[in-house]
């Protein structure tokens, strides 16, 4: 049950992707003990961690440098050896989700950083997080108001050798936007969020390819619809700065209106995460 070095290995997109500054990461970021490189499934069975799979959860209003409105940040930290899942969990798992319980009950969307990719025996591909991860909550209809006390519930599936569902109710105190000061950690977490951007996939025979900047390392994480359409084949999709996908994705009937993916593009100086719709800017 090993994760590969993924999250720490983002890259900065060069000029074309520079709507915002790249996030600087150490060139040789130390891999976490359970991390495992992309694309190579570990077949050895890992022992079940002895600790209860507690997921620490906390939430706070925070100010982000360069962003006007205060943001509600939730940090989830699975116990060592355990992981939780991205919004598109892959072949297995359950998306980490958030619900507002008060002042009124409603689902809220979470902006999530790029996940790590895990391949288990049987070519089972999953996407998730195994360390402290910050999620930023948003309400599609109207901004969340920092002036009111909130109660939210975070729910997750925590897995190691086995999986256990969990949830936690979190009370969030009101905050005065004028009194909030940006913090390095939340600024960094915010900058790690994918930005929406269309990228060009060039035709290359039976495939289409996306080429990142020279010297970069690109990783592709398919959202649920794309994952289903790929049917678990041809992972990993990228090597070095080149990603390849079957051209049929764009043409096979029925043609989807949208196929979302998250790209991580890492250079020596940092990384950028891009959320892109394959069906936009790329004719079938």
């Amino acid at each position: 049950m090993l994760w590969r070095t993924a999250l720490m290995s983002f890259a900065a997109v060069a000029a074309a992707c520079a709507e915002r500054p790249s996030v600087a990461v150490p060139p040789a970021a130390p891999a976490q003990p359970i991390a495992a490189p992309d694309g190579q499934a570990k077949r050895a069975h890992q022992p079940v961690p002895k600790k209860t799979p507690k997921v620490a959860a906390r939430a706070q209003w925070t100010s982000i440098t360069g962003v006007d409105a205060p943001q509600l940040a939730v940090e989830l930290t699975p116990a060592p050896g355990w992981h939780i899942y991205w919004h598109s969990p892959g072949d297995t798992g359950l998306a980490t989700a958030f619900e507002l319980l008060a002042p009124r009950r409603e689902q809220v969307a979470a902006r999530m950083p790029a996940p790590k990719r895990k391949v288990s025996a049987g070519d089972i591909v999953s996407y998730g997080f195994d360390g402290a991860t910050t999620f930023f909550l948003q309400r599609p209809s109207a901004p969340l108001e920092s002036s009111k006390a909130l109660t939210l519930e975070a729910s997750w599936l925590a897995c190691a050798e086995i999986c256990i569902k969990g949830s936690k109710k979190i009370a969030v105190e009101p905050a005065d936007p004028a009194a909030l000061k940006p913090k390095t950690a939340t600024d960094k977490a915010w900058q790690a969020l994918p930005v929406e951007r269309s990228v060009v996939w060039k035709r290359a025979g039976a495939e289409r390819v996306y080429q990142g900047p020279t010297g970069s390392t690109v990783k592709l994480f398919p959202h649920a619809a794309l994952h289903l359409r790929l049917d678990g084949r041809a992972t990993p999709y990228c090597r070095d700065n080149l990603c390849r996908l079957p051209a049929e994705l764009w043409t096979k009937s029925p043609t989807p209106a949208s196929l979302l993916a998250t790209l991580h593009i890492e250079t020596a100086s940092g990384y950028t995460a891009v959320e892109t719709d394959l069906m936009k800017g790329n004719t079938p």
Partner: protein
Amino acid sequence: MTILRVFLPVLALSWAHAAQATPPLLAHCGGCGPTHAKAKTNHQHGKTASVGHAAPTFKLKDLNGKEHSLEQYKGKTVVLEWFNPECPFVVSAHGKGGVLENLAKTTSSKDTVWLAINSGAKGRQGQGTKVNRAAAKKWSMDYPILIDESGEVGKAYGAKTTPHMFVVDAKGNLAYKGGPDNAPSGRKGKSYKPYLTDALADLASGKRVRKASTSSWGCSVKY
């Protein structure tokens, strides 16, 4: 000679796949043969059971040691349920109000049979006769639980999760693969889709399954 006898058909199958010029996304299981060896071969090439093509055949023993093969059910619709009695998703699905609580009972007939398959490797969660027998009793499962300890059948089908549902039609072709529904959390909201029930209804009325491939959900198969 023994080695040649075993591997020559395998090589022939590999070339057959290459010559079909099947696009990667449509890589099918048309070459899946009637033996475990061929199913395993397909897996080695990344080819797993594909909707609309021949389902990998198999022979597996149930908890009582009785052998079951896909061949013996030809002419019937066969529902294959990948199973792990200790997976919380399976527990929830078979428990009170779960999507699989009574589905086998209500859909089984002289024309439709259910088979659960446990592809857990020895020593892993949910593996072993005792725990499977206890689950079958607890959930009143009156259909066989087949043991696939090597995982060969699971991998030939591309079974990823428990539960993961596959439906083989009367002609032996894979007609559906995916989740039993679209509610992994068990909450059946407004957008609830009972995929498996719909697929079985389509087949029973002689139609092509309209939603033949869906996302599965659950625990990973403990290969």
